[in-house]
């Protein structure tokens, strides 16, 4: 019996030690994985800049008047690689010499890491009615249209395809033709109100549902 307990204690100690080792090993893998993920994101961030993606899509992939928002990525990685190699829109093709598949994978990770926070509740902090007044007074409509529908002079921003944080960040540090607007010129609270106004815009109908757009 004594031996039984002795054996049991040994087993328990062994199991405990084994478990501890396993847990320690698991922690190490997670840390390694996290570290690798961070490195991948950092690599992707650098590649995003060096390959020239940021020039059109913005430094955080938030979109500019030259190109759409791509953070978070709207497609899976294979589709992104396929599109980048043979784009069908205005975007120039990016060869493997400019950005390898591995670099595109890193960029994809970076874009996922830059995914905007949930927009839920952000509008609640803004006054949409005041935002509408500000949208007109500040002349946002001049390039983006009265309902933010976009034009040749600026992309569609109504409803906003990005978060308030991105909006404010972009307005302060735009990467396209839009000039930067300082806090002095357009305070954060005003941008918050404008954002709330833009969120009142309905999602547009699909073109296929409008006969005039199928002529």
């Amino acid at each position: 019996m004594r031996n039984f307990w002795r054996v049991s204690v040994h087993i328990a100690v062994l199991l405990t030690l084994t478990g501890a080792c396993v847990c320690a090993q698991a922690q190490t893998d997670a840390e390694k994985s996290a570290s690798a993920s961070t490195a991948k994101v950092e690599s992707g961030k650098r590649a995003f800049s060096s390959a020239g993606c940021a020039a059109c899509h913005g430094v955080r992939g938030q979109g500019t008047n030259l190109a759409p928002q791509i953070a978070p990525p709207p497609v899976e990685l294979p589709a992104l690689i396929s599109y980048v190699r043979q784009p069908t829109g205005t975007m120039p093709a990016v060869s493997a010499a400019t950005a390898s598949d591995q670099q595109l994978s890193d960029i994809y990770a970076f874009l996922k890491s830059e995914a905007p926070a949930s927009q839920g509740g952000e509008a609640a902090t803004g006054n949409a009615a005041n935002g509408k007044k500000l949208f007109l007074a500040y002349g946002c409509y001049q390039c983006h249209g009265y309902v933010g529908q976009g034009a040749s002079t600026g992309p569609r921003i109504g409803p906003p395809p990005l978060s308030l944080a991105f909006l404010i960040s972009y307005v302060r540090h735009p990467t396209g033709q839009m000039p930067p607007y300082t806090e002095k010129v357009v305070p954060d609270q005003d941008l918050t109100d404008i954002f709330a106004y833009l969120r009142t815009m309905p999602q547009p109908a699909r073109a296929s549902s409008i006969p005039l757009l199928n002529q």
Partner: protein
Amino acid sequence: MRKRKDDSVNRRDFLKAAAAGTAAAAALAANPVAARAASPAMPHGNATAPTLAKPPLADAASHVDVVTVDRPGSDFMVDALKTLNFEYLCANPGNSFRSLHESLINYGGNKNPEFITCCHEESAVAMGHGYAKIEGKPLLVCVHGTVGLQHASMGIYDAFCDRVPVYIILGNFENAAMRFGQVDWTHSAQDPAAMIRDFVKWDDQPVSLQSFAESAVRAYKIATTPPMMPVALVAGHELQENQVPDGAPLSIPKLTMASPPAGDSGAVAEVARLLVAAENPVLVTDRVARTPAGLAGMIELAELLQAPVVDRNGRMNFPTRHPLNQTERAGAVIDTADVIAGLELTDFWSTVNSVHGQVYPVTHPATKPGAKLISITANDLYLKSNYQDFQRYQPVDLALAADAEATLPSLIEAVKRQITDDRKNTFEDRGKKLATAHQQALDRNREAATPGWNASPISTARMSAELWAQIKDEDWSLVSNCQFVSRWPLRLWDFNKHYHYIGTEGGFGVGYGLPASVGAALGNRKHGRLTVSIQNDGDAMFAPGVLWTAAHSRIPLLIIMHNNRAYHQELMQIQIMADRHNRGITRASIGNVLVDPPIDYAKLAQSMGVHGEGPVTDPSDLAPAIKRAIAVVKGGSPALVDVVTQPR
């Protein structure tokens, strides 16, 4: 004061009488009209300039103004001008060309050319600008002295930048002794064409009728030989009004049009070799299609190569719905191109380079390293120095100083000779991919048109789609610049005929749009086409009197007002400046908007005899208004629909 011939003294009789002595002179002096001596200078109508025996003031006969002539010089000018087969003369009247005016309408019968009354010289020139892009030939514009020419100058500059021929005759009181007073002096110049010499291709100031005839024919030939540009001919007041000397050996030289300069065979063969061998060739067009043949040639060349075409839309160069039209993905195809052929490309540099930056332009190449650049343009044959419309210099690998349209036939043949079966297969694969990409681009544009679809002010996408629905089954011609409505017509409509689009202002001078549209409609009239213009409000207000011209001359034109109630380009610019100066951005509208009161363009049109609809603010009201207006236009008159629109 002028007098009818039957009440006056015949010039020849006068000369005989003057030679006969004092008795005749006394008789003339007894005539109250003839005795109304106006000037001690040479008598009117005396082209042979008789020698006076006594100082003029001492001779009673010299105070007698001969008021009639049998054949003024301006009649001969009309003879010369008629050989050039002008359909129309656009002019605001002015006494420096009064004799020519009278000869045109009476001696010339007001036919070929027919006088079109204009309310501003800039309108007259812009009408010629729009007309020439439809008809492929110039009309005649008469301009009055210094003041008329200054009014006309902006229109001339636009036509110059757009490489369009406009034939201008400029009246002038060249002989100071024959000026009647202050106004004649202020309206005269020693060298009247000097102010426009920097932006016309050629000008002359002939001092005899024979040289006028020769210069008239030469001017036409110069204006219509690529690169085409306006020309100006000064018609001196005395040359117009004085009698054609009896027995003067005048003749009018035959006009023989110069064949447009085409690329030499060796260079053309090299262009073909590069294009056929390229994996990703791109054809970039701007002002290629001067005639329907240019459009047909571009289609044939592109289809032979299955090469993408990026159209800068200076003319109607390539069908918008053609699968090889890749204009909407210009950046993508140019970025991957290994050979880029620019055909009558106004701004090659900006085609292959990108410009960014807020304060200072930051540039970088838009092409991949090693891409071969080919240029075919008549602009290499003739440039002016002062005005900078020639754009930034772009080094290329092969430059043909030649008219692209004239070069297309030989280039097409050279390409045919060099295509192998193997290359054909490659081309077919390329064409299929491009067709898919074209359709996707069209689908994207349609989706982009939907936001704000029911908004008021009305979105320019909605306005364009509503207009397209009403004209797509007609024989239509859009004669306005699409850039200020986000290019929606070019993105959504099916452009496939030479007259479906005529490009832009050229010099982007405000005030071109409305008169050029009226001029283009004048050209389209005899073809029975439905001419349509999407008209910017700020542009219309420069010289709205051309609405009256359209009504008066029964020129059918559908005008859709893009009434965003602002000089919108400048509104954006001032907002940018206010932001840069860090002084707040809420006052940019000062000086830039057309509100308080808003302009009622329908009433403006109605006041000049043009059918007016609007202002239309509800998009659902657009279709009925456009239908009513089209009914008026089909009846042979102009109509305007005022649409209150989004900015762009």
